[in-house]
């Protein structure tokens, strides 16, 4: 192994062989260990300077001549400046491979430094999501009781009822009438004019709501492009994949060969909203980064098993809906469709009317946390390098008739036990209750159209970032 150490003295983390393929060879492992030890010894020895150690001298036994000092070269040594020598002993650092706590700490430190010093965002993400372990799969649309409190605990989110003040401003009548016509025509088209086959059971929203929402999103973005020039530069995705992987809290392994060891609890969200709008600049923040530090996030002492949540092991994916290099990397609005298993009538039948709002809140919190978290990670932030500016996104959840509006501000990604110790920041979610857009469809006309819903929708879409 000594023969491999022909590398230059200056070694940094980027020179450690990057994973060309998923499988490391033993050679790569040995090289990594050797390079790491060399690097740390070099670093530590440059910080330490041992005291000057004069080499032990032996005076000659024969009678000394006058010039014996000069001849032996000691004169130069005695009268010259003190020579700073390199450290004679290697610095004491923990081993990289031993079965000890200090070795584990050193491995973690090396890993974190590798992530910090990664040259590109995709390399950072690869390092963070490389190792697969069992993780809890969090479904945004869930029928679990009181799921919103659990999800708030998992994502460290404060939920505030109502929306920020900027959405309560009235909007222009012409704009309102334009959007109203788009909405009314869309609903009538799907529910009245077009003759459709009977829908699949528990998939009615695919039949009626999906095409209406597609038309609404496209129509509204193009109609409001004049009012909000950022919308004309935006990208609209349909059925995008939004994935996020994070760790929160710790648990003791109950059984198995790793029994008794402390493991972080891993989560994964795999979401597929109906559509989303992405913009090239970040939306304006609703409140400063450190605000709402005094508000309480529900704390749940039981493990996620009891929600119930189930574990699986598969690809750890972090994705906003488009790849890292996309210029439209910031999120604007997501549109979610609920229904099928989660119809209002189903909740009422199951004796769970109060869970309708819980279901919507849980959906909003988890989807928006995943989207904003993925946006933040695509900018290079992670739990040890917390966000320096808040990431803001909005969501509209509907079942065709009832609409609810949510907005989310991501203030912190530091959710692991180590990073959360002195972290006063909390993520914030604002949301409304579900509002009826129309009361019923009678004789080819919508009765009781609620203009507040349309106003909110318009204000949501007109929300823009201040930076040019």
């Amino acid at each position, binding site marked *: 192994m000594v023969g491999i150490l022909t590398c230059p003295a200056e070694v940094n983390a980027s020179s450690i062989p990057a994973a060309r393929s998923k499988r490391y060879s033993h050679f790569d492992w040995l090289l990594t260990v050797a390079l790491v030890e060399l690097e740390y010894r070099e670093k530590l020895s440059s910080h330490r300077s041992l005291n000057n150690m004069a080499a032990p001298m032996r005076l000659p036994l024969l009678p000394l001549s006058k010039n014996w000092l000069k001849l032996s070269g000691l004169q130069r040594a005695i009268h010259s400046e003190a020579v700073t020598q390199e450290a004679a002993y290697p610095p004491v650092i923990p081993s990289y491979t031993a079965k000890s706590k200090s070795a584990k700490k050193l491995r973690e430190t090396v890993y974190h430094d590798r992530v910090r010093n990664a040259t590109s965002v995709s390399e950072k993400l690869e390092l963070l999501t490389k190792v697969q372990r069992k993780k809890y799969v969090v479904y945004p649309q869930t*029928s*679990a*009781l009181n799921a919103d409190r659990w999800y708030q605990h998992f994502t460290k989110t404060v939920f505030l009822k109502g929306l920020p003040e900027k959405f309560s401003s009235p909007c222009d009548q012409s704009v309102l009438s334009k959007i109203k016509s788009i909405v009314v025509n869309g609903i009538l088209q799907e529910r009245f004019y077009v003759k459709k086959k009977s829908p699949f059971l528990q998939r009615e929203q695919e039949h009626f709501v999906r095409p209406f929402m597609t038309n609404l999103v496209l129509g509204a973005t193009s109609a409001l492009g004049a009012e909000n020039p950022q919308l004309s530069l935006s990208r609209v995705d349909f059925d995008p994949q939004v994935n996020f992987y994070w760790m929160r809290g710790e648990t003791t392994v109950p059984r198995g060969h790793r029994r008794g060891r402390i493991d972080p609890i891993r989560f994964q969200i795999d979401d597929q909203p109906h559509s989303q709008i992405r913009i090239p600049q970040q939306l304006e923040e609703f409140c400063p980064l450190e605000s709402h530090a005094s508000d309480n996030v529900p704390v749940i002492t*039981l493990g996620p098993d*009891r929600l119930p949540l189930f574990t699986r092991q598969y690809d750890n994916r972090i994705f906003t809906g488009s790849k890292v290099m996309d210029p439209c990397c910031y999120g604007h609005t997501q549109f979610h469709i609920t229904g099928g298993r989660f119809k209002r009538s189903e909740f009422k039948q*199951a*004796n769970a009317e*109060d869970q309708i709002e819980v279901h919507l809140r849980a959906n909003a919190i988890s989807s928006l946390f995943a989207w904003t978290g993925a946006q933040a990670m695509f900018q290079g932030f992670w739990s040890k390098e917390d966000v320096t500016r808040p990431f803001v996104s909005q969501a509209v959840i509907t079942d065709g008739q009832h609409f609810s509006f949510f907005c989310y501000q991501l203030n912190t990604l530091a959710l692991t036990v180590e990073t959360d110790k002195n972290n006063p920041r909390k993520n914030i979610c604002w949301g409304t209750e579900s509002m009826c857009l129309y009361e019923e469809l009678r004789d080819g006309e919508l009765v009781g159209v609620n203009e507040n819903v349309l106003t909110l929708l318009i204000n949501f879409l007109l929300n823009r970032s201040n930076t040019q």
Partner: protein
Amino acid sequence: MTLVRPGKEQPPDTVQFRIPLEMTKCDVKNYLEKIYNVPVGPVRTRIQYGTNKKRNHLNQRVKRPDYKVAYVQLAQQQTFLFPNVFPKKDVAHEPGSMDEIQDKFLEDERQRQKPDPRRGGITDWFGF
């Protein structure tokens, strides 16, 4: 159908029952809703296998019976906490009775067994 204390800690809205093996989730839900008028949310069941490993004095294997456990979540934000069925009672005996003399004697014995508090917790095989 027996209400039991959960072995592992459950959320406050979850109640644990032991039910016959032939009963299903729907049966449990209907039973509780119709007979006891309890608003029931989701019900989850599992079958617990009883061990066949223990042996009796004739070295025959003795099977402990299998049973089904139902975890019932209560709807409408209701909670249930399993009560403490055997609370400790501070029994004050009447003065002069045999029980009081016995209690006093036992307490004196316990006090005699304790080491000298002036030694500050050091064992008595130290010292002179």
